[in-house]
């Protein structure tokens, strides 16, 4: 199976050889069968650096087919440099269609965000994961953390969250906020802001997590129960923004702070660029959208 593009004719469709894809698919199937469990896999060296999405790229390369439509986001945006680079990599090695529209995509590779629009059955969200082990910063030894998962010994994590509350009056974890999957495995949601954690729960889409450097794959099959760790008297809560998006007036979305001048004035805009653009196309206007505010706003 060669790509049509003669310039790169020496590489297989989606770069990886079929044997490697098969190996990765086996790891994915195992991960789907045991939601939240980190499956070791023989991660390959990829033509982009470790830490730049090699795990996600390997997962995407193993599942993508000629009829798929791919969207790649980084920080929620399609036009961040590394998202462009990964999208171009797949355009070059597969020749398949790509899109920036969340609803059109069958496979979405992401770093640090989950799209605002709820994902649908048939879609797959592929996360790039730097450190798959949620307890790595509490216990650096892999031999120990694997044992802790096997024995379902998650006390350490609760102690950490408790100490946060004792010191700061609140849980001071704002991203990569640990979750419990189907009441069994504690899982790192990748460094998405905790704002996105609730979207993982009971999601219609398949969620796959690839950590290339750390050689682990894990998964959340559709409609998996995903609960953010918390305490009865300190329930999990997501960050709330005081103002809506300055461009599309969206509320209850994740916003980026943009510095406007050297006087420290700033505005807040949607981190999900596609969501923001579609809302503006639909006529929603924020206060800095550069158009007269509509009466409806």
């Amino acid at each position: 199976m060669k790509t049509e593009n003669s310039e790169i004719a020496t590489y297989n469709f989606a770069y990886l050889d079929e044997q490697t894809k098969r190996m990765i698919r086996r790891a994915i199937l195992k991960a789907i069968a045991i939601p939240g469990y980190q499956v070791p896999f023989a991660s390959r060296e990829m033509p982009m650096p470790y830490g730049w999405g090699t795990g996600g790229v390997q997962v995407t390369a193993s599942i993508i087919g000629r009829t798929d439509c791919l969207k790649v986001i980084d920080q929620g945006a399609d036009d961040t440099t590394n998202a462009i680079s990964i999208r171009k990599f797949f355009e070059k090695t597969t020749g398949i269609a790509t899109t920036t529209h969340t609803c059109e995509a069958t496979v979405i590779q992401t770093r640090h965000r989950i799209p605002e629009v709820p994902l649908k059955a048939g879609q797959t969200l592929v996360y790039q994961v730097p450190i798959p082990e949620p307890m790595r910063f509490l216990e650096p030894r892999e031999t120990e953390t694997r044992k802790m998962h096997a024995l379902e010994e998650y006390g350490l994590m609760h102690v950490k969250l408790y100490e946060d509350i004792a010191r700061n009056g609140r849980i001071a974890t704002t991203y990569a906020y640990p979750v419990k999957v189907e009441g069994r495995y504690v899982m790192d949601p990748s460094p998405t802001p905790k704002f996105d954690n609730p979207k993982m729960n009971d999601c219609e889409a398949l969620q796959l997590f690839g950590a290339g450097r750390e050689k682990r794959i894990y998964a959340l099959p559709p409609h998996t129960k995903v609960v953010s760790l918390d305490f009865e008297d300190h329930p999990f809560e997501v960050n709330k923004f005081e103002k809506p998006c300055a461009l599309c007036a969206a509320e209850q979305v994740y916003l980026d702070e943009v510095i406007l001048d050297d006087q420290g004035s700033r505005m807040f805009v949607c981190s999900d660029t596609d969501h923001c653009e579609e809302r503006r196309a639909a006529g929603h206007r924020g206060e800095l959208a550069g158009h007269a505010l509509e009466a409806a706003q």
Partner: protein
Amino acid sequence: MYVAVKGGERAIENAHLLLADRRRGDRAVPEVSLDQISNQLALAVDRVMAEGSLYDRDLAALAIKQARGDLIEAIFLLRAYRTTLPRFGSCEPIDTSEMKIERRISATYKDLPGGQILGPTFDYTHRLLDPELAGSENSNTRENPKERAPNGAKAQRVSEILAREGLIETDGEASSEAPLDITQKPMEFPLERESRLQALARGDEGFLLSLGYSTQRGYARNHPFVGEIRIGEVPVSIQAPEIGSPVVIGRVHVTECQMVNQFKGSATAPPQFTRGYGLVLGQSERKAMAVALCDRALRAGELGEDRTAPAQNEEFVISHCDNVQATGFVEHLKLPHYVDFQSDLELVRKMRADQGSQKDASITSEAAE
């Protein structure tokens, strides 16, 4: 008015064009050829082949040229190519006693069968910059080296000399199964020694050098002696089922270091010397020695020694010795992280506000008293 940033794609293209331009440098200066790199920067090529785990001088030279001399970048280029190559099978274990020796020294014996052969070494050079090399050197005027004709005596490995008296641990049996390939199977800790040695052989020279050095300075000190270092070509052979015996398919240049370390014995083992072992593709004595020091330190568990130092910690050493992984993850900090930073920003603001209102409250209550 704020406009969402676009045009990243064009910026990336232009950055890469600029990179290509800078790589070529001043067009008035002749372009460096792969042959020049391969011949005159041979040790750089050796390092890239060793840590890239691909024995191909031309490809390594190309990678060095493309990487503008950044060796870790060159190693990365070679690895990313290597990963796409099909595996035909495993060769037979190479036999370093069959080596066509270019250099062979032992620090534990004054003389030994096969002799001490200095070979092409920086040792005992005075590190004085050579002005003659700065000009367009006429290499023909340089004196040709005189090499002693080989006397035909087989250069026995020092470990074999010691093993005759039972003074040193033996090689052990090679496993009959094909060796585990750490680039094809996920590593799981604790590792077998063969996997560990594979990881060390492709590990970063600088990292392993410093770790080896730390063992000499008391962090897991184990009294090493250089039993032997040998550099040269060894034949590589495969089992060809049609022929029924191993067939030599080529030769590779390797550096082997056997460190001899004291061991006071245990309940089951008599006092004898133990070994740290390093084998590296190409000529890289420093790396082979560092690997041997680290290998010995990492055997602490197997030999019943206390694990107290970083060099003895297998997960620490093996998880961090790969420079392609390390450089990728360190440099990924350059990627945008503004979404997570925003979360932290909000939290810090909130915590500062909390602290401020607590202070205000205490001031008011003090005033009221």
